[in-house]
């Protein structure tokens, strides 16, 4: 049986007494694209933030390479985390830095020679179709370009694990497909482990090997992409079809009625 690279066991997290994660059990496998789907506000981003270390669980265990993060000393946890990258939902680009400086930041803060940085950033910008805009500031770019700059920054260090928090939010269908293709392409090329939080149904099933669905702070289903896609679970099927079963009224019926 395949061992999980990252495993969450009964993870619980509350904010001001409001439970967000209510006993999450999730396995992430090495070299695969795992996508977490679920309605807005179910705690998907909170879950990602636990994996990267921006949040710490109130209860439960997070296993990194089979070792509980709580039992890891600072340097082991740091050694694991430095191979991770995170692409934020709102990009989190530095508005006072140019595109070049933003993408170069993870390298320039380390002891890497400027010439090497210039070469690697130039290559990364070229690969993501961002050549010629390296002296512009994020505020001068379109939403799609900003997403690509954020992706370039996330991938510049050749991370082993990349976390994407809704990487296609606010993009048109063409750009959305292009971002999905880029993730799939780079994952196949570099072999990193990707964890994506997304609402892009059904596109996400085509690029993911593993899919999990979060509902009311719990993973209600996880497995291979096709297994989840064709699951008989009514919650999963209603989400895939864009239906709101809690009100007993489907969104497509409303549209039809209108």
């Amino acid at each position, binding site marked *: 049986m395949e061992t999980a690279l990252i495993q969450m066991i009964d993870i619980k997290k509350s904010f001001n007494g409001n439970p967000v994660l209510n006993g999450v059990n999730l396995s992430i496998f090495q070299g695969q694209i795992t996508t977490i789907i679920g309605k807005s506000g179910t705690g998907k981003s909170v879950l990602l933030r636990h994996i990267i270390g921006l949040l710490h669980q109130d209860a439960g265990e997070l296993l990194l390479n089979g070792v509980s993060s709580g039992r890891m000393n600072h340097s082991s946890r740091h050694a694991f985390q430095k191979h991770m990258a*995170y692409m934020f939902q709102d990009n989190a680009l530095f508005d006072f830095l140019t595109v070049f400086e933003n993408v170069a930041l993870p390298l320039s803060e380390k002891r890497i020679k400027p010439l090497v940085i210039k070469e690697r950033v130039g290559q990364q910008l070229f690969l993501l179709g961002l050549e010629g805009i390296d002296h512009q500031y994020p505020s001068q770019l379109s939403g799609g370009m900003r997403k690509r700059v954020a992706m370039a920054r996330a991938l510049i260090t050749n991370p082993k694990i990349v976390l994407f928090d809704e990487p296609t939010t606010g993009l048109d269908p063409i750009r959305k497909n292009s971002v999905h293709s880029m993730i799939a392409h780079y994952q196949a090329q570099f072999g990193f482990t990707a964890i994506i939080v997304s609402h892009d149904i059904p596109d996400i099933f085509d690029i993911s090997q593993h899919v999990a669905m979060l509902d009311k702070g719990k993973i209600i289903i996880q497995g291979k992409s096709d297994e989840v896609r064709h699951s008989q679970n009514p919650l999963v099927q209603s989400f895939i079809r864009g239906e709101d079963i809690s009100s007993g009224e489907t969104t497509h019926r409303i549209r039809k009625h209108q």
Partner: protein
Amino acid sequence: MKPLLIGIGAGTIHRIEGLGRLCIFLFNGLKQLFVFPLQAGKILDQVRFIGAKSMFVIVLTALFTGMVLGLQGYHTLVQFGSEAALGSAVALTLIRELGPVLTAIMVTARAGSAMAAELGVMRISEQIDALYTMDINPVRFTFSPRLAAGVISFPLLTALFDVIGIFGGYVSGVLFLDISKATYMDKVIRSIHMSDIYEGFIKAVVFSFVVITICCFRGYYAHMNTDQAKGAKGVSNATTTAVVNACIMILVADYIITYFTV
């Protein structure tokens, strides 16, 4: 009665936690100053922002402060026939007290508020979280260069304030009133001792720690303010609190240093 006690207890715990967080923040910022590679470029950028860009406002404030001191001092001293001591009064007041205090308050208003707002925006737009995910120490990136630049800039700005302030006293005492140029300058030179200058510089360095630490801390933790305000409101609260706290702490620190050095 019980809810009141719970409120007092929770408020006390929150403030003690905040104080602890502030101490850890300052300690980490100081420690990161000595971690290689040194951030010379960023420190110089901040010296330009905190120091060079504050010069105009410091010159203007110092000139009018010196002129007012000259004017008020003259009309007070003349009643005792001691108007010749105007130079001493202006110089000592500026070097030991007003120079460091007003410089720190003006830099808080100009650069401190901007630092709190900038870090607050970085916090709410997840840029500080992004630094963490890129394996960059956020305290090193945001706070340490500003702290170093503050320690360099404050004494220099204070020295500028003192010189311009003494010139302001000269303008109102010598040019507008009837003090002789030689008397004024002689009293200035004779009354100042190195201990007065040291005291002024000690205050400037302490105030730099106070101002930069409080302003950066408030911005850095803009999401953790007591009234739970988030977003733009959180940044606005952080900026206001930073300026008010820094100004009060400047005056408190001034009293403590004066108490031990006078």
